[in-house]
């Protein structure tokens, strides 16, 4: 099953390449009788093309939600969006004639670059992250991991009932104060902020190691068969808990990465749109 980069065996890649190559050749060829800039006939031409291209690229936001549209498939559009978007980088750069400064024109160009490069990241993410995600989850779904954790917790609580109070509280706290997800940065960093309370003191419990450690110590102390088995089970359960949590943290991270870039790509694109409008207007206000 082909995916969007290889759509129609890279039709839009070819188109985009062709376009950029042609334009570049013309750029090198033509002598406007003045420094090459956006003001020459050729400058105006690629300027117009680029502007239209930007508008069209932004229309993708509509097309992907135009569910009745029979104008190609969203996959095809995305493919075109990616490749022509990359082409835009060349076109617009030539349009600048490599004249930059502290002005709205360069602002527009800069915004465009941000949009495009965030787009590059997005394309990469869309291709590789799902694979990483799947590899991480190993054939079962995230929901199943959550369920398994809930299940483990239930068993832990059950088992911990017979344990001495401080240990019981410790285990409760370990479950209570398990951290997963959270704000953007927590989601992006897979570091484990979990902690636990033991004898009224707060300890870090990264990867449940703190808890397991305490249980192991306890296990060393206990003498009677019964509780030894219990502790072993608990340790084992926390081990499983740790595994699932680890997997989920990575899963959450990947999900966040998959979505986050759009929150740069889109707003910047709109900023770009504004800058583009200003760019065009200003150039003609001060013709």
């Amino acid at each position, binding site marked *: 099953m082909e995916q969007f980069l290889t759509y129609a065996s890279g039709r839009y890649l070819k188109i985009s390449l062709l376009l950029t190559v042609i334009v570049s050749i013309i750029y090198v060829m033509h002598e406007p009788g003045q420094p090459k800039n956006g003001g020459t006939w050729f400058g105006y031409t690629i300027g117009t093309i680029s502007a239209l291209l930007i508008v069209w690229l932004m229309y993708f936001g509509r097309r*992907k*939600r135009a*569910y009745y549209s*029979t104008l190609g498939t969203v996959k095809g*559009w995305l493919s075109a969006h990616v490749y022509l978007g990359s082409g835009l980088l060349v076109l617009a750069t030539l349009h600048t004639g490599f004249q930059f400064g502290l002005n709205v024109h360069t602002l527009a160009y800069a915004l465009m670059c941000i949009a495009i490069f965030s787009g590059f990241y997005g394309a990469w993410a869309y291709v590789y992250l799902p*694979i990483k995600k799947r590899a991480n989850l190993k*054939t*079962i779904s995230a929901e199943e991991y959550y369920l398994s954790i809930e299940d483990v917790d239930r068993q832990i609580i059950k088992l911990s009932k017979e344990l001495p109070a401080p240990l019981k509280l410790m285990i409760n706290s370990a479950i209570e104060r398990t951290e997963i997800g959270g704000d953007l940065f927590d989601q992006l960093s897979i570091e484990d902020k979990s902690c636990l309370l033991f004898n009224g003191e707060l300890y870090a419990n990264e990867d449940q190691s703190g808890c397991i450690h305490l249980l192991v110590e306890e296990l060393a102390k206990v003498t009677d068969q019964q509780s030894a088995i219990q502790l072993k089970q608990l340790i084992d359960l926390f081990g499983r808990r740790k595994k699932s949590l680890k997997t989920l943290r990575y899963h959450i991270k990947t999900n966040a990465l998959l979505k986050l870039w759009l929150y740069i790509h889109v707003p910047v694109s709109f900023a770009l749109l504004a800058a583009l409008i200003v760019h065009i207007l200003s150039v003609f206000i001060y013709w």
Partner: protein
Amino acid sequence: MTKQYKVVVIGAGPGGISAAAHAAELNISHVLLEASAKIANTIQKYQKGKHVMAEPSILPLRSPIAFEAGKREAILDEWQQGLLDNKVNIQYNAAVVNIDGEKGDFKITLANGDVIQAEFIILGIGVQGNPRKLGVAGDDAKFVQYTLDNPDDHKNETIVVVGAGDAAIENAVVLANNNKVFIVNRRDEFARAKEGNLNLITAAIDNGEVECCYNTNPHRIELTPKRDKPGIFVLKTASGEIQVPVDRIIARLGAIPPRALVESFGIEFPNSDPNSIPVLSAKYESNVPGIYVIGALGGYPLIKQAMNQGYEVVEYILGNDINPADHPLLESKLEHLPFDLDVDQTLAMMQTKIPVFTPLSALTFREVMLDSQVHVFEPNVEIFKKNDYTNSFYTILAGDVNIVIGDRVIKSTQGNFFGEMSLISGRRRSATVMSGDSCIVIETPRRTMIKLITSVDAVKRVLDETFIARTIQAKFAPKIPIEQLQPIVSKAQLNQYRANEVLFSEGDEANCLHVIRSGSVTVSKKVGDKNIPMSYVAANNVVGEMGLLGNTVRSATITATVKTETISLDSDSFNDLLAKSPTLRETMELEVKQRHLENTKLELESESGDILSFLMQQGLGEATDVLLINEDTCIGCDNCETACAATHGGTSRLNRKAGPTFAHVHVPTSCRHCEDPSCMKDCPPDAIHRGGLGGEVFIDDSCIGCGNCERNCPYGVIQMEYPKEKNSNFWNWMFFDAGEKPGENKVKDGDNIKKAVKCDMCKDIDGGAACVRACPTGAANRVSPENFINVVNL
């Protein structure tokens, strides 16, 4: 003393009510016996406020009791009222346990021991059967119920649910949210429950949400009007009695299927098939003279039909030979026919002319004709095309048709039938059929035919034989006329396999081949110590011929993926087939070669084998077109769902997240358009159809929201949904977040009913499946089983 009536109506369903009321109208001595405490038990079980349809709308109502589409409650009240107005003599909680005697003098024994004498009996007890009672003292108390209308009606009550089945578990768990719930289980585990429900209940019990009493039996119920709780439920546990003050007792002990009861009355069924219906005369009279069967039990699931029958049957008893209510319908159906006969004559003529229908009772045939269409074709009109997904059944009333199989044209003449292949296998048409000269054919919808096959053995037999003969001819001996194949056909046998049953396994001695008639199979080979499925073979294909040709042992194991029917030919008959048609060997060998090639495709990749078996576990063996998501490219944007919702009135027919995943293949919860769709099995208004070329299974607007399909679907891809508003302007949402997001429409206000919705493969949307077209990365794809191989080999 035993009371004496002319007419005794058993079962106060629509039919019964109508019959009794009509009897009352005519001042015939009568009694209406209802096993439960309310009339129309089945309709009582409908969820609260459910809208009840009056299908078929064209059919006029003929009953003293009024009935039109409306809210469940309204209708029930109306009927109650009707009974009063007509002074119907109705007796509740009067379950009939036995009938003996004969016409003119029946003795009807009730559960409470009373005996009633009757001249005629009208049996309208429906098919749901009666719920099993608690059977303990005081189980007639108000707070004892056998259904749960609406869980939200109960809050902060103490409720005891009795039973260990799915129904009981579901009730208990849903009630536990707002109530104190006990569940009473006779045994020490929930053995009968589905996996999902089992987890639910165990979890609920662990959390102490539901108190479970194992190894406990209900003992007795004491009314305690004084206390705040209306009663005390006394339970017998291993450790003695416990008393639970209760607000409510819900017993979910299943129902007693009526058939046993009915048979005990001496009424015969044509066969053991549970769907079969008793043999009835044109006047609804059963094989026991004087006992009339109406309503669902008689094969008329629709309310209006039943009520009409109620009316008619009373007339018949009085000896008035009135035309059934459907008469005008038939008239209009038949009027365009070139022979000037009245309806009954035409029907009779049809039955005589068409052997398949001859064994049918006039009534059944009438029923068939009501559903059927009669076409008068110009010569050389295409009746259906090869690879169409239509599956109706055609019989030739006059003239002839030409069946085009490849380059050959077979003429089929008056009395013959065609289209049974697709009818039985649920697969695409295997040939194109053109009308011949002066050709009149009767088209009977699949549903009707299936009903017929299950209820009339004769029809089944005929169809099966022809099917076999034609299959063999088509598959092996195209040139040879059917007659010459007869010996082989007679030796061929029809086999049925359950899902995952093995037809034959690798290494067996090859003694026969199978033509798959319906269902599908997987071919698996031993690699190391485990069986790895290598390919999937759909209906209308041949398996096992490799062995026969090589005349050796089986090279692979064949396993049925779903309930599968095959026609098997032993090696001898296969050999003389080979003798009969010299070219056969080559063609078969070619097929074998291709099979070999296909097999090798997978042999290397053991994972893809696993994937294939995974797909089969998901019941995709019976799929014709399924949505698969490639997890390696899915970015989880849910655009597929949104697309589906946006293009289908705001309700997504697929759930991306849900559904199992294996390796990179994810099977979201969405319709796979089964070969033999379970959802179609029991649809009162026959609102579920199979589309044309697409083969999509879809629900049309005539859905009455009964929810049968939802329950029948093994894959849970049908939902009951309220109709929703049209969505607001897109740009307003896009720019100002005004109005709804695409695909998140508001529910229409006004009392609408929930109707069944499911994937219709976007049959009405040009461009095809929206989910696939809306997938930005090409992860979502609709695949038909033949192409699973391509999916799993990535």
